[in-house]
């Protein structure tokens, strides 16, 4: 498939909270680039320095639980992560992802078990599926209004588009 991207897996366990994604003491760092250097410092110290654009995060249950800090998905976006697969997401984190234009997909536990940390998997963006160990994982599409937000690149861009569209009508 022409659209296949080989992408590296960063695998995490249950209950990775937003303090682990980016700890409180770094929230005051001057900018998001600087803050991103400390992403996942406790659960995976090598993550921030080694993660590549388009790498995917695969997590188990309750990914992104804890505080509402938007810096958590933002540091991941800054490091080039565009897709996160998890057996389940914490709600605020899930919404923050969509509002920033990151795609949070829910997968089954049996699918989670197929992934191995630091291995490459094939992502087919056209068919929105991932091939891992000869199995195809279809990522379920978002409701159309969520797709609209993601397609706009996030909520700010989406609200702006709506505002401008209304202005044109007037």
């Amino acid at each position, binding site marked *: 498939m022409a659209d296949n991207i080989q992408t590296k897996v960063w695998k995490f366990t249950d*209950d990775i*909270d937003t*303090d*682990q994604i980016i*700890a*409180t*003491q770094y*929230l*005051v760092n001057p900018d998001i680039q600087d803050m991103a250097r400390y992403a996942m410092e*406790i659960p995976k110290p090598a993550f921030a320095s080694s993660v590549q654009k388009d790498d995917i995060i695969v997590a188990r*249950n*309750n990914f992104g*639980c*804890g*505080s*509402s*800090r*938007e810096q958590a998905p933002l540091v991941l976006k800054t490091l080039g992560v565009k897709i996160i697969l998890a057996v*389940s*997401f*914490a*709600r*605020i984190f899930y*919404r*923050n992802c969509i*509002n*920033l234009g990151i795609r949070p997909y829910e997968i089954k536990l049996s699918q989670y078990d197929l992934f191995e940390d630091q291995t490459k998997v094939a992502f087919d963006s056209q068919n929105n599926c991932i091939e891992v160990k000869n199995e195809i994982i279809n990522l379920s599409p978002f*409701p159309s*209004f969520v797709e609209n937000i993601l397609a706009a690149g*996030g*909520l*700010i861009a989406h*609200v*702006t588009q709506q*505002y*401008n569209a209304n*202005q044109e009508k007037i």
Partner: protein
Amino acid sequence: MSQTLTEKILARASGQKSVSPGDIVDVSVNTAFIHDVFISGVVEEFSKLPHKKVWQPDNIVLIADHEVPAVSEWAGECYKTMLRFADAQNIKQIHIAEGVCHQLIPEKGYVGPGMVLVGTDSHTTTHGALGAFSTGIGTTEMAAVLATGKIWLKVPETIHFELSGSLAKGVYAKDIVLSMLQILGAEGATYKAIEITGSAVKNLTMADRLTICNMGVEMGAKNALFAPDENTMAYIKESGADASCLVNVESPIYAQTIKMNLNEIKPMLAFPKGVDDVHPVEEAIGTEIHEAFIGSCTNGRYEDFVVAANIIRGKKVPGHVRFIITPASMHIYKRLIEDGLALDFINAGAMITNPGCGLCYGKHGGVLSKTDVAIASNNRNFPGRLGHKDSQVYLASPATVAWSAVNGKISSPEVM
């Protein structure tokens, strides 16, 4: 019909007759509040929008509570950003260092039954205690709310806790919610609403209900609420909140009902590094502690300090324990002084701090060292939450914290 309270509120706020779990609805917001840590982010995102003015300044509240007094050179800029934004947008409800947002919102009358509230803090679930739909959102999302007064929400399924019986001596609302966490786990209510009803509810004070709804988010819940009753109406009469959004619920159908007999609940602890690793206090009795904390948006209310003061009065905490008292608002702080409780705490060896969130989010005013063990009345004990990643935090009721502080080790308030 058979709608739950959450469904009723979301139907009202989206102008529909009825809504069902899974529906996506565009909801009008009654109160939106932003705290100091995220004000810069919200203002920055808002500035990217073409809307020059917020949708309705009277429905917006700005609260500086996390970084007070200033803990870094950055904090002062946060207050200034807040003041400038309030000035530019004609927002009159601004509270700098007056208390923790989840105490000020109910206390100042910004929440009434049936309202929809959103706040930039995850513990915004707290305000369901007054029969409102209340949930935490991110900074980008808040910017969109400020611009439009609306938010998209997926109608959640409701998990129903039905409470019967009454609490035994030494057992409090915190022990109820820790017991709920033991049942549901840290993600048992993800995407869901939690509604608490039953014959025991009428005996729960508003402080008790605020404690329980506060920790709804620790179970992953979108919101947690109690149907408004006489206690609620008496509270909002005092606070001056708007009661016009009130909705009535008749025999709702829930996704799941969990019955709890309060007579069977014991004093509980969330063990270190797991808010849902809940055990009876007796399993940790004798564990030496170095810090004991009563405060936070979970348990920093006047009622909590009355319970604690009755335990520590005339006693002295041992030298190895730092005993920290943090009233959740200046109003509560004044009452502690006026009623002599502040003196009880000081005589017992406590430090009384200003209202704020510093200790509970590991920033200032009680940061834990590598080898510290703490017992605390707040809501979170993730690794590193209150300081060093190896520090250990037991979450407990104010009574368990106070009695443990006096003994210098974890102790059960059942056997005082």
